[in-house]
């Protein structure tokens, strides 16, 4: 990295940011994107590196961490969903992602950037298990 920014900061990007050369919004104002609210949604991804993957204990930790933020936080094992509410212990427990799988996160709300950074850091730290 050329600058001194946070080591994982480069993985967080605004979702739905206009691409260069993208057409301007239609004048009719009908161009509402997908199902997410129009407030800023940040996204990022991290690969499960701990042996057991997203088993019971990591699922509890992920849920607890997500709950400590006000923002809406979701993740998926594919970049286009289906999206799981990271604050729902039952839904998170059912994902059962294995080591090597990538978790795609997205967050929106007042503390979205901090929430996203914390969730990615938890996965990177192997859920503090190893």
């Amino acid at each position: 990295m050329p600058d001194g920014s946070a080591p994982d900061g480069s993985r967080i990007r605004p979702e739905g940011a206009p691409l260069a050369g993208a057409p301007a919004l239609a004048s009719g104002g009908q161009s509402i994107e997908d199902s997410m609210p129009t407030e800023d949604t940040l996204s990022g991804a991290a690969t499960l590196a701990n042996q057991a993957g997203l088993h019971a204990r990591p699922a509890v930790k992920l849920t607890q961490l997500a709950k400590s933020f006000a923002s809406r936080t979701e993740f998926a094992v594919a970049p286009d969903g289906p999206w799981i509410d990271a604050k729902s212990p039952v839904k998170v427990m059912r994902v059962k992602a294995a080591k090597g799988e990538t978790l795609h996160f997205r967050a929106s709300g007042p503390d979205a950037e901090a929430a996203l950074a914390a969730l990615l850091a938890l996965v990177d730290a192997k859920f503090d298990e190893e």
Partner: protein
Amino acid sequence: MRVANVGIVIVSHSPKVAEGAADMVRQMVGDSVPLAHTGGDPDGGLGTDLARILEAIEAAWSEAGVVVLVDLGGAETNSEMAIEMLDEDRRGRVVVCNAPVVEGAVIAATEASGGSSLELVKRTAEELYA
């Protein structure tokens, strides 16, 4: 400090099951949630005991309320009787959860550890049977 977290009571016919489920909650969720467990009849056999259930509710008491996880028949009826015997101001804040005792205890405690309401803690654990 925020408002107290909802408490968890585990009631099983087997004292070993009750103790083991409580161990899982403590190890997986931590100690931010009031927790008590009881199992077995006064003679040391399998069963549940009204007085011990009342003691467990007292031990796990939280102003935010208490959810009770039960295994089979008598555990549920005795827990319901115990709730009816509570003081009027507490009675409405203790609920039996329709969820598997071990998984339900872990999920309920995970939800409770985030400061969720009694109603949400109960509903989340009951998603396990949904």
